């Protein structure tokens, strides 16, 4: 599998660490109602689709950037790659 890095071009997955469902970026804020439920859902109940999955990859053996990769878990085809800090704004 190769990931099309927005800055560095096509890189082998050897260079990356996989972190999981991109919703991990959206950490709940403390002092909310039902915060236990929210953190339980945030940490443990992640998406596990048989199809397009939006996920975090860390370019550890490269430029150490976080990427959001849209990938088909059925075929391993990669649809879209963006820098995670763009998503966070």
């Amino acid at each position, binding site marked *: 599998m190769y990931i099309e890095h927005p800055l560095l071009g096509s890189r082998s997955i050897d260079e990356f660490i996989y972190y999981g469902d991109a919703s991990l970026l959206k950490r709940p804020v403390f002092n909310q109602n039902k915060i236990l439920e929210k953190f339980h859902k945030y940490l443990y109940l992640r998406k596990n689709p048989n199809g397009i999955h939006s996920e975090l990859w860390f370019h550890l053996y490269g430029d150490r950037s976080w990427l959001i990769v849209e*990938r088909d878990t059925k075929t391993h085809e990669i649809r879209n790659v963006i820098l995670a800090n763009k998503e966070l704004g």
Partner: protein
Amino acid sequence: MNYNFLKLLIEGLNNNKGWLKTWENVNPKKHYDIIVIGGGGHGLATAFYLASEYKEMNVAVLERGDIGLGNVGRNTTIIRSNYLLKENIPFYEFSLKLWEGLEKSLNYNAMVSQRGVLNIFHSDYQRDAYTRRGNSMILNGADAELLNVDEIKRMYPFFDYDNARFPVKGGLLQRRGGTVRHDAVAWGYAHAANKLGVDIIQNCEVINFRIKKNKVEGVDTSKGYISCKKVGCAVAGSSSILLSKLNMQLPIESHVLQAFVSESLKPVISGVVTFGAGHFYISQSNKGGLVFGGDIDGYNSYAQRGNLATLEDVCESGMALMPMLGNCRLLRTWGGTMDMSMDGSPIIDKIHIKNIFLNAGWCYGGFKATPASGWCFAHLISTGKPHKLISDFTLNRFYDGSIIDEKGQGAQPNLH
């Protein structure tokens, strides 16, 4: 049909014409008391123990494809109970005891071979950790032996003992561990369950659950509607897909695990060996192929095939332990979908719908657990109460914090 020596002798003289089917292929009835979804090892074992131990007489197993073609026929066939945590060891030790009597209870030759599982360690720290694990095993009724280098040299003279980076310092041996012919486990359970009246329905995919007042009334399948009183789900890597039909999200990610088989060799590796400095385990099949594997690829996947980066990593680990592997050619590789739970331990529990039960989250250790998983899941389905060996394998443990994290990795499924 009973398999025995006399039958073998008669059929040998009779040109093997009188063998009957191992199990009967049937069409579904309109109603069953219990439907087990998933005709893998765990599903078939559940059905067998439902019939044999809990006297449930109207049980069906629904399998989307053909039985024995999922992970039960695609693993590295190892059985062992060398766990650390008190929530796990009694369960896996019970499983190992069931393996020991399996062939007799199933009347089927599953080639259970207790050839010993040896975990090698390479540092003083690891010796301490393995000693602790061994003591924990002994305290919980399993067997464990700590071996020094000379004892290992007598068993396996070909390891790279003086490797500058990962010298072999000793190993933890579980003599009762070993391997089992994996396909025969599926066939054996199907045979024995079928003989007790369980219907094994192949090529029958569950499309939807029919729920009324928080209870399941039946399932819509590719072979029509079947009503039932209870449903047990044992679909491993497909658990998230199946349970999403009930709008349920599970603390599970599906990952791909690859396994590898070499060309056939003369007997060389007598038992099961694991490398302590990387993730690598190896044994030799009765056909002579070296069967080995390592880490999962590490990303969500339902593709049932992996990437070459993992292959390279596994082979490097193997070469570090036994350099002679480099002379051996790889014959085939394959990948299966693993239901990686968030703490690395399984879930056998009720769900929010009253009469549906869940058996999932086996990560890549489901094969060795097959008999105990089937037994305890059958107990849960039949009595509605968890068997004492699985009382900690709850779905709620992620919420209340009582997780069973054997490796201490936290909520990172690709590291378990």
